[in-house]
């Protein structure tokens, strides 16, 4: 290489170096901004982290509050049932007293008749006037007894609707069981979300969320709930169940259609025991098999039909 070529190469390198300096000068403000941004975002991320941990603690409190609500409604329901039992007991006692009074009226009427017969038999015709007077008085007494008996019957009749209403109140308390299952379902969801947050925080190295006490995603009745429980008195579901039990591929209630495995413990039904008798009220195994084979589009393993509602297991899987 000639000396001219060497000088030219040197000058080219200088040009490249100058270009790098120029570029660096252009990027320097951007790099400063980037550095400031990273500093800001670090603070922001810390705040987000703190917020998540705090909110997670709130979830714990929400779970506890729901449990308290469940326990309170159970206690209150039990008290209502106690009072209802007492009212029904009092009603029975009143009915017994009414019956006693009616019996006494009948006995008194019988005694009056015997007295009148005795007077007629024992006293001569010369005392007919006296006997007639006694008979008149006894007729008046009987009129009074008849009037009282009518009033007793009215009282008895008025007790019947009260008893029916009390029984209805007791039956309405089924809502407590249904509400408890709904709250348990919500609690389970909160617990699942919280566990996912814990896993997330652990993964990003910030440890577990703040816990006020030991982790508890367990609902009050150890996850043995039906997440689709609802207080539906329309009777649609009962009609559908009746249709199926009668061996008809009846229409399911409109709206949701979720097979879903039973919540809580192992829930797969045991294989039907062909040897054990099944009452005629239920469909036979062949009927059931035919129902499954015959279609209706239902999956026998309890899968979703139409996909309207997810089972608890499916929700859990989504969070895994």
């Amino acid at each position, binding site marked *: 290489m000639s000396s001219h070529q060497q000088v030219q190469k040197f000058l080219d390198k200088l040009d490249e170096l100058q270009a790098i300096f120029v570029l660096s000068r252009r990027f320097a403000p951007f790099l400063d901004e980037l550095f400031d941004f990273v500093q800001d975002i670090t603070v922001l991320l810390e705040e987000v982290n703190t917020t998540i941990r705090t909110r997670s603690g709130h979830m714990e409190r929400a779970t506890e509050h729901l449990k308290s609500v469940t326990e309170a409604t*159970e206690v209150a*329901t*039990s008290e209502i*049932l106690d009072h209802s*039992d007492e009212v029904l007991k009092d009603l029975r006692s009143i009915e017994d007293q009414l019956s006693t009074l009616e019996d006494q009226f009948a006995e008194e009427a019988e005694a009056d008749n015997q007295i009148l017969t005795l007077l007629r038999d024992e006293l001569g015709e010369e005392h007919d006037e006296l006997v007639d007077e006694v008979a008149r008085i006894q007729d008046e007494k009987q009129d009074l007894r008849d009037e009282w008996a009518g009033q007793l019957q009215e009282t008895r009749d008025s007790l019947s609707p009260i008893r029916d209403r009390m*029984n209805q109140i007791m*039956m*309405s*308390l*089924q809502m*407590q*069981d*249904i509400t*408890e*299952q709904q709250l348990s379902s919500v609690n389970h969801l909160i617990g699942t979300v919280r566990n996912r947050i814990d896993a997330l925080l652990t993964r990003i190295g910030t440890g577990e969320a703040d816990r006020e006490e030991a982790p508890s995603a367990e609902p009050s*009745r*150890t996850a*043995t709930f*039906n997440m*689709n*429980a*609802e207080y*539906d*008195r329309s009777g649609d*579901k*009962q009609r*559908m*169940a009746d249709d*199926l*039990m009668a061996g008809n591929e009846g229409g399911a*209630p409109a709206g949701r*259609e*979720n*097979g*879903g495995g*039973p919540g*809580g*413990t*192992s*829930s797969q*039904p*045991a*294989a*039907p*025991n062909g*040897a*054990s*008798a*099944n*009452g*005629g*009220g*239920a469909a036979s195994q062949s009927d*059931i098999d035919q*129902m*499954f084979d015959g279609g209706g589009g*239902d999956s*026998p393993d*309890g899968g979703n*039909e139409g996909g309207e509602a997810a089972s608890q297991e499916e929700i859990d899987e989504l969070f895994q």
Partner: protein
Amino acid sequence: MKFLIVDDSPTMLRIIRNALQKIGYDDIVEAEDGEDALGKLEDADPDFVVTDWNMPNMNGVDLTANIRDHPEYADVPILMITTRGMKEDVKTAMKAQVNNYIVKPFEPEVLEEKVDSCLEAVA
């Protein structure tokens, strides 16, 4: 006629007991889940079982299957009373060989009708 009623809800146990008493059945034994019911089965010697579905330790479907496998109580009428009201639920219960099925909330008249139906079926 002795009834064994199985439910983990004390409220439901009382409601079902009251409803049964109202229709004339006073001889009632209670159990709080399927496991408890199986444990009490021979002592209680029930003529009729009323069970919930969702319960801890052992659910109603598994309880039904266990009773159907029991040499002495395989034929006892079993009525399931549950909040589970989907078609697949009923089919699952049928596969486990319950005799009849009630969806909560129920009316006392429905309970009477289903009890009668179960008894007629096994008669």
